[in-house]
C-alpha cells in the first residue's frame, strides 16, 4: 500500500477502526462492518449468557476483520489487567484496547490507573492500544511506558461532540512515537476528517455509526471521511491568511 497504517509491526488495511457497541442487531453490525471497510473491530468482555446462541465474533470472523478486545467498564488497573488477560485467553490475541475510566457520568479515563495498567500490561507482553485523555503529557508518559498506540479522545464516549480540543490533538501528534488514533467523541463524518487532517493515523468510533439512523450509510461516510482527511493531511493544507489572496493573475488585465 502507498500509505500503510502499521501498529506494532502489523499492517492494517484501513485507518478506520470500528467499535461494535450499540449496533441494534448482528445484521446491522454486519452491514456497517462491510460498508466501513474496517480491518479491526473492538469487542468487550462480559459474562457468558447461557441463553445466547450467536456471538459478535460470528460476524467479525466471517468478515475477516481483526478482533480487538477492550477493557471497557474497568475502574482500576487491577480490573483492567484481569480483563485483558481474559480477553487474550478468549480471543488468542495479545492486543488489547486498554480503557480505565473514572466514573459513569464522564467515562473519562483515570490517568493514574491508566498509566499503572499500561505499565503492567506491557510488562506482561501485551500490545497495548490505550484510550486516553486529550492530554499531551499523559500521552507522552503512556508512550514511555511502552504502549503500541495512543488513542486520545475527541470528546467523551458516545457524546458525539466532535474534537473539543484540536490543539491538544495536534500537540499529541507532533511528538508521537507510536500511531495516534482519535478515539471517542466522533459525531459525524466531518469530525473524522478533522481528526485525520490534524495528523492522526486513524480513527476509532462506534456510536457515530452504530447509533446513526442508517448505520451502513454512516459507516460508508466515515470511510470516505477518513480517507479524505488522510489525503488532505498528506497533501499539506494552505496556510490560513488574514486577508484574501487572488488566485487569478493580477498582471495582464485588459484596460476596460
Amino acid at each position: 500500500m502507498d500509505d500503510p497504517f502499521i501498529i506494532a509491526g502489523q499492517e492494517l488495511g484501513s485507518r478506520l477502526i470500528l467499535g461494535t457497541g450499540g449496533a441494534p442487531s448482528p445484521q446491522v453490525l454486519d452491514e456497517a462492518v462491510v460498508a466501513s471497510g474496517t480491518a479491526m473491530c473492538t469487542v468487550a468482555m462480559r459474562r457468558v449468557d447461557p441463553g445466547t446462541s450467536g456471538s459478535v465474533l460470528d460476524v467479525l470472523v466471517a468478515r475477516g476483520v481483526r478482533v480487538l478486545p477492550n477493557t471497557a467498564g474497568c475502574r482500576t488497573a487491577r480490573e483492567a489487567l484481569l480483563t485483558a488477560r481474559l480477553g487474550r485467553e478468549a480471543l488468542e490475541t495479545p492486543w488489547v484496547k486498554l480503557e480505565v475510566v473514572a466514573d459513569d457520568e464522564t467515562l473519562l479515563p483515570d490517568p493514574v490507573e491508566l498509566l499503572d495498567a499500561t505499565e503492567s500490561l506491557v510488562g506482561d507482553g501485551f500490545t497495548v492500544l490505550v484510550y486516553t485523555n486529550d492530554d499531551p503529557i499523559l500521552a507522552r508518559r503512556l508512550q514511555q511506558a511502552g504502549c503500541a498506540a495512543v488513542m486520545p479522545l475527541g470528546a467523551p464516549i458516545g457524546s458525539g461532540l466532535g474534537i473539543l480540543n484540536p490543539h491538544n490533538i495536534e500537540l499529541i501528534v507532533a511528538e508521537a512515537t507510536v500511531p495516534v488514533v482519535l478515539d471517542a467523541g466522533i459525531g459525524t463524518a466531518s469530525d473524522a476528517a478533522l481528526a485525520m487532517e490534524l495528523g492522526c493515523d486513524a480513527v476509532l468510533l462506534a456510536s457515530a455509526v452504530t447509533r446513526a439512523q442508517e448505520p451502513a450509510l454512516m459507516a460508508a461516510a466515515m470511510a470516505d471521511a477518513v480517507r479524505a482527511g488522510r489525503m488532505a493531511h498528506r497533501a499539506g493544507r494552505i496556510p490560513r491568511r488574514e486577508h484574501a489572496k487572488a488566485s487569478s493573475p493580477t498582471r495582464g488585465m485588459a484596460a476596460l
Partner: protein
Amino acid sequence: MTLTINGERVDLPDGSTLAELVTSWAPAVRGVAAAVDGAVVPRGTWTQVALCEGQQVELLTAVQGG
C-alpha cells in the same frame, strides 16, 4: 459442592472439572475465557482443573462493545 459461577450459586457434582463446567455452561459460545478465584486459567489446562467447594468462577466471552 456449591460454587459461584458468574455471580450465581450453582451446585456441581464433586470432582467436576473446569472443562466440564464450561461445556455445560457455554456449549455453543465461541471464544470463552475462565477465571477461578481471580486468576485466569489457560484453556489448555481446563481438563486438569478440579473445581472445589466455594470457588468463584467467572466465564467471559466477547460481546458488542466500544
